[in-house]
């Protein structure tokens, strides 16, 4: 499995005939994503690389049963594109567009709050479940299928971390860029929760940056709720306060939102923090190793009936999951 997108993802591309939209539709299709429809008002009835183009998202969904939408439209039209996607009945919306006014996004967020819709972004690179599906702009060639979940507020920094993992032989379940804006649809905790519940994911990399307190909250969540190991990285240690560092969300205001504060929160929650993205694979390997020895050490200790039962159940579940994956990997290898 993977999170948010997989082989069953049927994608509609909003802004498919634009410069970015058409380029990345091609790349997503080449990667194996089921791109079933495109939308550009006024161009309904035409085709792009064999993909039917519609005038509205509702029409595209009705005709093609698309369940996920990706948005490449220019900033002035992005909020409207999200409303349209939400009303059309797709369950997952990924907004790549950078530069959407934040106040506009507050209204969008309020509108979809009670709906059964997941919004990722805006101002994000999208996500990829290696070997299954890619939605957005993350380069497919730097990824490899495996058991590490990656969640990040940044784009190219994510590529750097993912490439380091792949280079070290550590594949990924899903890599998610949640976006660098102040108002975003999906935050760290949403992704951590999904990774915790995903049997393919064995460990998680969380890449944060200065600004806000999402990382601090995520660290609390990791400490309280997560059984899987999490490794962290924070960028912006050298950023001066009060200045926007590219991303609209990357601003240190007063003494809050600094890198030090975030690193301290990670440390407090027992999350090892890499000093350089190149150190991330080493920390992941270490965490996975510890997990194995911990599982071994925990199971023979029998202190309380209930606890033992739970631990035992979890351990067997994990073993089963592991077996499945190793089988899959073995199959793949033999095919090659």
């Amino acid at each position: 499995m993977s999170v948010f997108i997989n082989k069953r993802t049927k994608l509609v591309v909003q802004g498919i005939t634009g410069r970015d939209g058409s380029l990345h539709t091609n790349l997503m299709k080449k990667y194996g994503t089921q791109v079933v429809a495109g939308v550009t008002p006024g161009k309904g009835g035409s085709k792009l690389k064999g993909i039917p183009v519609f005038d509205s998202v509702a029409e595209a969904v009705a005709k093609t049963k698309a369940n996920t939408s990706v948005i490449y439209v220019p900033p002035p039209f992005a909020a409207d594109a999200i409303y349209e996607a939400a009303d059309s009945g797709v369950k997952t919306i990924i907004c790549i567009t950078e530069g959407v006014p934040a106040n506009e996004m507050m209204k969008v967020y309020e509108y979809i709050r009670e709906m059964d819709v997941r919004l990722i972004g805006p101002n994000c690179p999208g996500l990829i479940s290696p070997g299954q599906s890619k939605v957005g702009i993350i380069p497919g060639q730097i990824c490899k299928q495996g058991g590490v979940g990656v969640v990040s507020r940044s784009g190219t920094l994510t590529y750097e971390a993912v490439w380091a993992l792949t280079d070290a032989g550590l594949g990924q379940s899903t890599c998610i860029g949640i976006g660098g804006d102040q108002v975003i649809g999906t935050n760290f905790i949403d992704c951590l929760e999904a990774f915790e519940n995903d049997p393919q994911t064995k460990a998680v990399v969380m890449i944060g940056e200065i600004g806000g307190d999402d990382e601090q909250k995520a660290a609390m969540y990791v400490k309280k709720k997560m059984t899987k190991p999490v490794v962290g990285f924070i960028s912006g240690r050298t950023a001066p306060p009060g200045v926007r560092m590219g991303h609209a969300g990357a601003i240190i205001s007063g003494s809050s939102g600094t890198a030090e504060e975030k690193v301290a929160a990670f440390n407090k929650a027992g999350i090892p923090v890499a000093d350089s993205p190149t150190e991330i694979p080493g920390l992941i390997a270490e965490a996975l190793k510890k997990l194995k020895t911990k599982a071994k050490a925990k199971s023979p200790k029998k202190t309380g009936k209930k606890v033992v039962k739970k631990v035992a159940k979890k351990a067997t579940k994990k073993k089963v999951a592991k077996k499945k994956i190793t089988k899959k990997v073995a199959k793949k290898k033999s095919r090659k």
Partner: protein
Amino acid sequence: MKIHEYQAKELFIEAGITAPSGKVATTAQQAEEFAREIGAPVMVKAQVHVGGRGKAGGVKFAKTVEDARMHAENILGMDIKGLTVKKVLITSAAEITSECYVGIILDRVTKRPVFMVSSAGGIDIEEVAEKTPEKIHKLAVDPIVGLRDFEARELASKLYKDIKQIRQASVILKKLYEVFWKYDASLVEINPLITDETGKVVALDAKFNIDDNALYRLPNIEKMRDLDAEEPSEIEAREGDLSFVKLDGNIGCIVNGAGLAMATMDLVKRYGGEPANFLDIGGSSNPRKVVTAMKIILSDPKVEAILFNIFGGITRCDDVANGIVMAFKELNPQVPVVVRLTGTNEKEGAKILKTVPIDTGAKTLDEVVKRAIALAAKSAKSVAQEELVLA
């Protein structure tokens, strides 16, 4: 984008918020004239894009027009938190009987506009927020419904006891909320909101931060931009569509992506250098952007080496390489340039770079940073030696 107090007040007055108007002076002579026009006593207030002006001595009460001239003389040219004061606002001095604070911020936690009000307003508001946060009342407003009358009244009743003042303040709060939306603000603030000797509620100060992402639909705000109050290299970067922040170090950094740019700067510091800047060339691959980036960085005399870290996704390495070659032809850089190109069209990029004298030996992020620092030290040394020889 930030605008000055006098500009923010113009927007307030236009929206119907009671605020004293004033005049902006750039010389002491002018300040005196305006003080005479308005009628003493007046306030002389530094117009800079930074908080804490009062504490830094940038806001003075002038009893007479001569005092206004003297204060303006002192304040103009003054340095407040690294910014030079080039304008002062001359405004009538009000008799203050109470000082409150009201503000609206875009709150990323609730993802709603949040009102903050306190009856303990004035120059110590930051201390109040830190030491006695219970004195600040907050309300997150549903952005679709908007601020309702009873909510405005409730907030106002945290500030005043007299029903007349509560009514006046609720009107101001409602109008402030309208202004927040009309101009895509990320922050609006009145500190202090005062009552004068007649009991009237007046906005004595105004602070306005506007979302850069919304400037495309706010042509009148864009016109308010004070180029005098900005770093010249940052203006050039903005015009070249680059995201740039000037810092004080010796290693110039050119990176694609904000997160990676910050991570690269952090590594520069970690390995013993100091980043000279934050610079994100963005996702598009226009080679001209690279030339502009190099030009801006080379204009900083402190820079001893330039470090390129490009992880190609949308950005194509061959485009960046072409930009570097163009920059070498046009700018002839005298400092060492270290380049790491990874990702989309990496091989094509490496081929193009063979024609220019740069260091492309580093493969990883850590390596390229270390190379840049080592070469910077070397070039600094050779410059020092040259100077020694010349002396």
